[in-house]
């Protein structure tokens, strides 16, 4: 599991953590049943507050990507969906956006707008 966070980014740190972990569950780097590092260890490695990590873990639990179990910490949840198709769609979408010379931010804004 590789997580990078950029303190200079406008995106809050906990959201960067959430999207970092979420994308690795979706692309299969993090497998079902795999235990995530203890919040304290992750916070220490990334020089962030432990509550930032806990907040990220709680959001991921609410999105059903991980389970938080007393004593066992955070565990990658069984996959409710198969993300292979979505991954392929995203690749195509990005390729199309590149062809149209759209930036990542512009594409993201379009996708966000498409949600009701």
């Amino acid at each position, binding site marked *: *599991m*590789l997580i990078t966070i950029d303190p200079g980014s406008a995106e809050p740190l906990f959201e960067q953590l959430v999207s970092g972990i979420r994308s690795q569950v979706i692309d299969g780097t993090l497998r079902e049943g*795999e235990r995530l590092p203890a919040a304290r260890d*992750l916070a220490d490695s*990334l020089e962030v507050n432990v509550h930032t990590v806990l907040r990220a873990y709680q959001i991921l639990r609410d999105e059903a990507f991980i389970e938080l179990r007393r004593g066992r910490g955070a565990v990658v949840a069984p996959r409710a969906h198969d993300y292979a198709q979505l991954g392929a769609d995203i690749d195509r979408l990005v390729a199309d956006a590149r062809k149209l010379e759209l930036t990542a931010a512009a594409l993201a804004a379009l996708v966000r707008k498409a949600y009701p």
Partner: protein
Amino acid sequence: MTAKTRMLLIGVIVPLAIAAAGLVAVIVALPTLPDPVAVHWGLSGEADGFSSPLLAILLPPLVVLAYSVLAFAAVRGDEPPTANQRVILAIAPFLAVLITVIVTGSTVGQSGLADATDAASIVPLLVVALIAGLAAGVAGWALLPGSAVRVTSEPAEPLTLRGDERAVWMQRAEPNRLVAGLVISILAVAIAGGGLVLWAVAEIPALIVYLSALVVVGGLAVGSLFWRVTVDRSGLRARSLVGFPRFSVPLDQVESASVVDVVPLRDFGGWGIRFGGVRRLGVITRGGEAIEVRRRDGSTLVVSVDNAGTGASLLTALALRGTMST
């Protein structure tokens, strides 16, 4: 003759042939052997343990066969052997000669005796077996192809990190399901089987000693086969899941990080915490991709882990950033 043929000949075929010759010798002598035969000798040189000749027939071939499986597994590809492979392969003829001369020799030596209690002292035979075994081992060692020169691996490309971006890579290192299942089932059988036997025949203290010894062995097995590997701003850490032992390479000690392909028996002589050459320590839980970190003092740490490329790239990037900022 290719390197592989020669390695298989010395480590597998010749030892099996020696065991087979011993087997034939005992079977030929079988009609003239006393039953039971002497199988154990006291310190005074007098026979004090007896058993059916079946033991003398089966023991050497089974031991040699079991070791041959290990030696066979240690031969991979047609490359010259590493130091670890040489040791494993050269022990094969030593072991085959030693056990065949002792067991087969002492049994065949009893042919013509009416009663096995008259069996001659085993001491001269032990000396002969040890000398012959050592000679076979040394000959095997000398006849093996020359040791391989290790191919130096290319340092990993650094991961792209923006200015003050922080990064961490964490990965569990553990045996594949087969090895893990094997270790767990051996321990379970040892606990259940040995415990039951001791409970039936021995006092409670013996049972306690046995079970605590198993807990220690089990703890060591888990401790040396299950790890969490972390690469972050403080460098690389490999920590056993039981908390100890742990190995680390601080960022300012990292000379280079790369990905290597590890064959446990060939490169490290097995699994667990292993030496694989001079000042080259391995945390080896399985074969396949591994991170190799060279320290500035010239020593090396190798950790077998999935996605080793990502870990090595991050470590390279962080180490580069460290040198640039100082």
